[in-house]
């Protein structure tokens, strides 16, 4: 298959949002690292669930409830397989990746970390992988270390032995949502484990874009969100090694996570339900199952190949057309990055830039991308960010490149 070109036109036709103009313009959607668009198959899976199988799960002896439970658990197996987990009880559904990281901090962290213990993050983490640790630090007095970032927007992995020395947990993004930089996971995992630290990965930008195999990566925790990988809002995933999950206390309490409740106390039920208090996002989990099917049918190796090619085209074209007027943060080498580009254009403020681009239907995000410490380090308040996915092609990049000239016109001073 790898000799045929990736068929973007076919992919686009699977996504209803591209059928009609948006705001009277062709939608040039370049914010997939914010959230992805959804293929018809995912929407259909959820609608079909509601129309023919809707009931609460794990709770009734009747046909419909059993059907709903099996569809939901079937989706869990699919997700486990998609990320290379052999034990689907290691896949815990949360509401988003943010809850997944809060769960690590609030459950594992609260019982395992004490004053003087250390968690290692990096300067380019998303707030989802910073604030939960600040909250824990306020509560338990732990130390947080921030790995520096190199000039080309990668986590600086020199001197890891010193950074990891005495650390209990290393929690890093596997791919930056600001610079697109891929983290060398093998090096991180090896060094962290050598130092006796566990490894958590913020895989929000990894799982949607690259083939992912938790067994091969060897990390201990991994978090990601459905909505960035063709799935619906309202569901995220925490994957963690069984032994860890088994030893951890619950994060929230309620129905579905108990073995018994009395007026005196409670005992928890087995994995993964122990961490899924209350009615789960049933339809959303089923939607995520369909998203995983969709991406698997495309083949994640092909997805990655397409994105590397389009990344190369992006970097080449923007340089050719705008030369030094554009500064793109992040690695220059497409194989070391995903298709996420934070960039500056002349001295036009990112917010104004995205406003001008939007006038042509070119949808890029402007802001701090939930990475304020990194913005502070870059010395900017915000960047503009374009990000690519399976439905983008060269014409989208061309449209962005053309639209930049409009900004030059308007803010030419």
């Amino acid at each position, binding site marked *: 298959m790898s000799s045929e070109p990736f068929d973007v036109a076919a992919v686009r036709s699977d996504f209803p949002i591209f059928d009609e103009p948006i705001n009277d313009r062709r939608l040039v959607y370049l914010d997939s690292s914010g959230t992805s668009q959804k293929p018809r198959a995912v929407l259909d899976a959820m609608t079909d669930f509601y129309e023919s199988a809707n009931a609460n799960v794990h709770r*009734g002896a009747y046909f419909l*409830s*059993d059907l709903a439970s099996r569809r939901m658990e079937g989706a869990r*197996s699919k997700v486990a397989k998609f990320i290379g987990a052999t034990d689907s009880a290691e896949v815990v559904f949360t509401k988003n990746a943010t809850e997944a990281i809060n769960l690590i901090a609030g459950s594992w962290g609260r019982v395992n970390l004490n004053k003087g213990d250390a968690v290692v993050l990096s300067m380019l983490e998303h707030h989802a992988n910073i604030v939960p640790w600040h909250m824990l630090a306020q509560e338990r007095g732990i130390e947080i270390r921030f790995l520096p970032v190199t000039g080309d927007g990668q986590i600086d992995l020199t001197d890891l032995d010193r950074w990891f020395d005495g650390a209990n947990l290393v929690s890093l993004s596997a791919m930056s949502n600001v610079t697109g930089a891929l983290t060398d996971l093998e090096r991180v995992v090896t060094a962290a484990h050598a130092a006796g630290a566990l490894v958590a990965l913020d895989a929000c930008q990894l799982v949607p874009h690259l083939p992912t195999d938790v067994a091969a990566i060897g990390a201990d925790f991994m978090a990601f969100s459905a909505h960035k990988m063709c799935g619906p809002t309202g569901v995220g995933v925490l994957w963690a090694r069984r032994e860890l999950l088994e030893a951890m206390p619950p994060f929230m309490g309620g129905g579905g996570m108990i073995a018994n409740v009395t007026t005196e106390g409670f005992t928890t039920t087995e994995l993964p339900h122990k961490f899924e208090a209350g009615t789960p996002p049933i339809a959303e989990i089923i939607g995520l199952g369909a998203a995983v099917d969709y991406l698997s049918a495309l083949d994640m190796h092909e997805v990655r190949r397409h994105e590397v090619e389009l990344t190369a085209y992006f970097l080449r074209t923007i340089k050719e057309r705008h030369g030094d007027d554009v500064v793109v943060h992040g690695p220059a080498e497409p194989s070391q990055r995903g298709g996420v580009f934070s960039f500056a254009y002349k001295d036009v403020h990112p917010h104004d830039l995205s406003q001008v681009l939007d006038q042509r239907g070119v949808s890029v995000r402007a802001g701090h991308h939930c990475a304020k410490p990194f913005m502070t380090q870059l010395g900017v308040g915000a960047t503009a960010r374009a990000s690519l996915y399976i439905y983008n092609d060269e014409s989208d990049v061309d449209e962005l490149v053309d639209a930049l000239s409009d900004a030059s016109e308007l803010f030419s001073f």
Partner: protein
Amino acid sequence: MAGLEDLYKEIVIDHYRSPRNRGELVSPPAKHAEGFNPLCGDEVQVWIDLEGDTITNVAIGGQGCSISQASASMMSAAIKGKTIAEIGELTVAVKSMMSVHEHALEDDDSGVLPEPPDVELGDLEALKGVVKFPVRIKCATLSWNTLVEALNN
């Protein structure tokens, strides 16, 4: 009732109506465990007297649906006088009678079903119909899980 014959076999109903080995044993020395099915409230208690490796006495307590209680009763009859090794085999056999299907229903398309151990199941065979009613599998396996726990205590 049409469609339910496979579930409610006469012998199952008989064990439900007249449970065998109902009671309690003094613990210690008896090994004891309590199992819950948190989803539907079934509860099974198992007491076991061991002499060396052999189960000399069993008692069953708890409450729950016909399947959970009949299964516990059948189990109690099947394990009395058996050795721990024999019971290990029996447990695997009973559970594979159920769980093979449990997996198939969870969309596991691995297709490779492990060969169940070649053990005489006797009355227990009547529970095979449960696999057509996947929600009831947990009712049927509860007593066996509780037994394993009791043996480990």
